[in-house]
């Protein structure tokens, strides 16, 4: 009995080891094709099937190229990417957002696409939305092809506005209009329902700073400027909403976030990204969007994601073909628009017309209105450190432990130290 059980255990262990060694993809069939690896975060988890459709369409047009798609959730993506880059195993093509693009470009990780695009007669820079294309260039070199871009808008619960007898937001609103509406809503909405939500964090702060007429960094990126008066005004605008009772505190927000509160019909206005349209589409109330109200000047977020090619790839031509296909080919663009997978960074009008026609929200024109006054994120090589530093001091100001001026001055001191090491 003991011998049988020992043999059984040994057999299982041997079998598992054989399985572990034996589960290898058959490489013989791939020998005649060029296989490139595409590593991405933008499709995870909701658009993995859409990427597969794009790959199928690409491989049909390019039978000599096979695209091996790998994906990771955004929260883990850069950990894996950095590991692969450092280990000299960078994927041929991968996603980068604008905020991390500078770091990788300055490290020499990315291929200058100008050299490859010149050899591709079908490539046209004019196929891309100009602003999105330009942000992925550095020192005269083009390092990325923009795949998508997005912005933030003011989404509002029309039913709550009507029940409170407050006029609906419109595109001419500025901060004073938003505040006036918030005050009226606060007086009329039931307890537990809030007027407004705008997060107090790095991303929102630099945008609001721009709308307040300020600059985050000097033009040469040697000095922080966000602690000047426009910065004080911007931060006061953000943290004042909670102080005046328009916006829930962290405790009142509970375990969810503002999107959950909005979907529950307990938030009249929320400053949120256009990526939330899909999440909001089945809410049981009428809602719409307007462009984010400006301060002394209009100013709205501009986010973009690009496909970049590794500088170490040995398949530059194939990698570029895939990057170009996924970012500008009409087939790929149509798949993206049909799947409500962010806005394609293309200059073509037809797919954008399809996007504009989708409902809800009805006022999708506000998205393109927002893109008329883009504010790109301030980006330095030590991007993570920059964001962490600013967020730390914004939180202290929001908690009331120090004044707004003190918080911004302290943040500026630390950011200047980072800039000195750039």
């Amino acid at each position, binding site marked *: 009995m003991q011998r049988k059980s020992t043999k059984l255990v040994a057999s299982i262990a041997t079998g598992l080891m054989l399985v*572990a060694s034996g589960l290898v993809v058959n490489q013989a069939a791939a020998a005649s094709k060029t296989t490139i690896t595409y590593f991405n975060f933008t499709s*995870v*988890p909701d658009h*993995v099937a859409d990427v597969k459709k794009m790959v199928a369409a690409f491989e049909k047009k390019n039978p000599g190229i096979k695209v091996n798609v790998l994906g990771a959730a955004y929260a883990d993506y850069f950990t894996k990417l950095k590991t692969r880059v450092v280990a000299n195993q960078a994927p041929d093509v991968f996603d980068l957002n604008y905020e991390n693009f500078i770091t990788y470009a300055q490290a020499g990780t990315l291929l200058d696409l100008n050299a490859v695009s010149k050899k591709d007669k079908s490539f046209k820079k004019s196929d891309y939305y100009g602003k999105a294309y330009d942000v992925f260039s550095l020192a005269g070199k083009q390092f990325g092809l923009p795949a998508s871009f997005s912005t933030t808008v003011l989404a509002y619960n029309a039913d709550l506005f009507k029940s409170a007898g407050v006029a609906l937001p419109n595109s001419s609103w500025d901060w004073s209009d938003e505040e006036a509406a918030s005050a009226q809503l606060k007086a009329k909405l039931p307890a537990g329902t809030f007027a407004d939500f705008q997060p107090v964090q790095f991303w929102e702060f630099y945008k609001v700073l721009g709308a307040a007429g300020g600059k985050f960094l000097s033009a040469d990126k040697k000095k922080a400027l966000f602690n000047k008066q426009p910065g004080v005004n911007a931060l006061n605008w953000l943290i004042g909403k909670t102080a005046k009772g328009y916006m829930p505190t962290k405790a009142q927000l509970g375990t969810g976030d503002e999107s959950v509160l909005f979907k*529950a019909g307990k938030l009249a206005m929320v400053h949120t990204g256009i990526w939330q349209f899909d999440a909001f589409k089945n809410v049981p109330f009428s809602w719409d969007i307007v462009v984010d109200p400006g301060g002394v000047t209009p100013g709205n977020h501009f986010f973009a994601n690009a496909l970049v090619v590794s500088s170490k790839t040995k398949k530059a031509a194939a990698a570029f073909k895939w990057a170009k296909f996924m970012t500008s080919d009409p087939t790929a663009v149509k798949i993206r628009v049909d799947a409500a997978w962010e806005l394609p960074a293309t200059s073509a009008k037809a797919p954008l017309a399809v996007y504009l026609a989708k409902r809800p929200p009805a006022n999708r024109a506000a998205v393109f209105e927002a893109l008329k006054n883009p504010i790109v994120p301030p980006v330095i090589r030590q991007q993570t450190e920059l964001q962490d530093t600013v967020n730390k001091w914004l939180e202290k100001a929001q908690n009331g432990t120090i004044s707004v001026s003190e918080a911004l001055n302290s943040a500026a001191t630390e950011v200047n130290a980072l800039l000195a090491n750039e």
Partner: protein
Amino acid sequence: MPKSFSRIGIYLGGLVMAFPFLWMASSSLKNDVEAFATPPTLWPHKPTTINYHHAFALADFPRLFLNSLIVSVAATLLQVFTSGLAGYAFARIQFRGKNILFLMYLATMMVPLQVIVVPLFLEMRALNLIDSYWALILPSIATAFGVFLIRQAMLTIPKELEEAAVLDGANHWKIFRHVAVPLCGPSFATLGILSFLATWNSFLWPLIAIYSPEKMTLPLGLANLHGEHNADWPLIMAGTTLAVIPVTIVYFILQKQITQSFLTTGIK
């Protein structure tokens, strides 16, 4: 204290321990608005299995389960085997420098994975094992904790039993196989369940070592349910509920051995 009081206390303690799992399962049957509703609801107003359908659509759960099973079972069997051998050697064989060696080996328990992850990655890359099951199995086939647990269990074996086996002509291997292992069964079971759990739940190392979706383990698959801008928590709860089912089954099968091992004080 009357037995009924202690029994009530045990049931209450059990409920407190089980409550997070109940909440996880309950949230998996809700939509995201009800999942964060105030006041919270334990039982959903309108239970739905849509999150489970969605989880299966977004992640290849059968493949994730298979990968986790292969890695966890292989690593567990190898770990139990190596820990048994080393634990026996440290407990029953006298050799020079044994105690120093054991202390040094034990000291490696102080080193967190984050410290060794880079050299470990370089090592696996040099062996061309990155993005393979072996990259996940090999680093965990020997652990200081396993050796420590088995050593402590084997120290409790009466010397008379060992001497009797020697008189019968048994060598160390036969003493290990026929005397030590049967007597330390509960400890081996405990080590088995703990190493299975640790490997099953391992995230950081598989995140770095595995690229291909075909080789991903369950924790990596669950992490990929998070979006760039949103986290669909009921969906993630559905995926997590599916992920804990196998370890719960393993625990229920081996719970007697685990309890027995914790109760055993080394005197038989």
